[in-house]
């Protein structure tokens, strides 16, 4: 679980609905595959993602092995004003990656 990437518009206006795109590198091991010795490779996926803006919940996702490797997630956000996003990805086992991004709001 590494290299989280977030794409926000360069500029946003208050009241505007913007698209937020996120991507993170992860194999998303399904728990269905077998290795060369015929042993099942244990499941290891990113099972949750959440996005907050200035501490307020905006969007979240519960993911299952049906989500592709290097999970891409995109959602929308109605800009209330200037502030900062906090994105969190959580892997099976509890490891997490947190990424903060300021939104450039122009009047």
């Amino acid at each position: 679980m590494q290299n989280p990437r977030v794409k926000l518009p360069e500029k946003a206006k208050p009241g505007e609905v913007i698209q937020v795109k996120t991507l993170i590198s992860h194999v998303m091991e399904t728990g269905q595959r077998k290795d060369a010795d015929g042993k099942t490779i244990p499941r290891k996926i990113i099972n949750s993602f959440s996005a907050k803006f200035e501490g307020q919940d905006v969007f979240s996702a519960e993911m299952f092995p049906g989500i592709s490797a290097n999970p891409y997630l995109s959602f929308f956000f109605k800009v209330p004003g200037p502030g900062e996003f906090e994105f969190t990805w959580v892997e099976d086992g509890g490891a997490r990656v947190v990424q903060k991004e300021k939104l450039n709001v122009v009047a």
Partner: protein
Amino acid sequence: MTKIGSPAVCNRRRFVVAAAAATAVAVLPSLPALAQDQPEAKPWDALVKKILGDAKPVEGKLTIDMAEIAENGNTVPFTVAVDSPMSDKDYVKAIHLISTANPRPEVVVFRFTPAAGVAKAESRLRLVSTQDVIAIAELSDGKFLMTRRPVKVTVGGCGG
């Protein structure tokens, strides 16, 4: 079966029994096709019931946007959306995406708040084979929307 018949009779009886069995086997595969509207309890069916509870979902306002033919089942882009005002009183709480043929029916649950402004989300999913994908939206007033769409998969995507 009788033990007193001549071998010839026995053989004929065996033949009749075998022929009847063969006919039964030949007929069987067509039965599920006839029963398509009343599917037997499948994992995805149980999941749909678990999400809906006693609620009766309605169609419309909820869309799944996805290619009709997915060349690579390992990564199939999709968008789910509900036409909703996303106000504090009327918004979409969640959209569930369900596979009808993957080893596990759950794919993803998107959870929204009115802060999103638009009830729309995108991701990429794995599809093991040609199948129907189901979306269920849970609204703030307790109602549910449901839709399903078929997708053809050229190369399945669940690894080895």
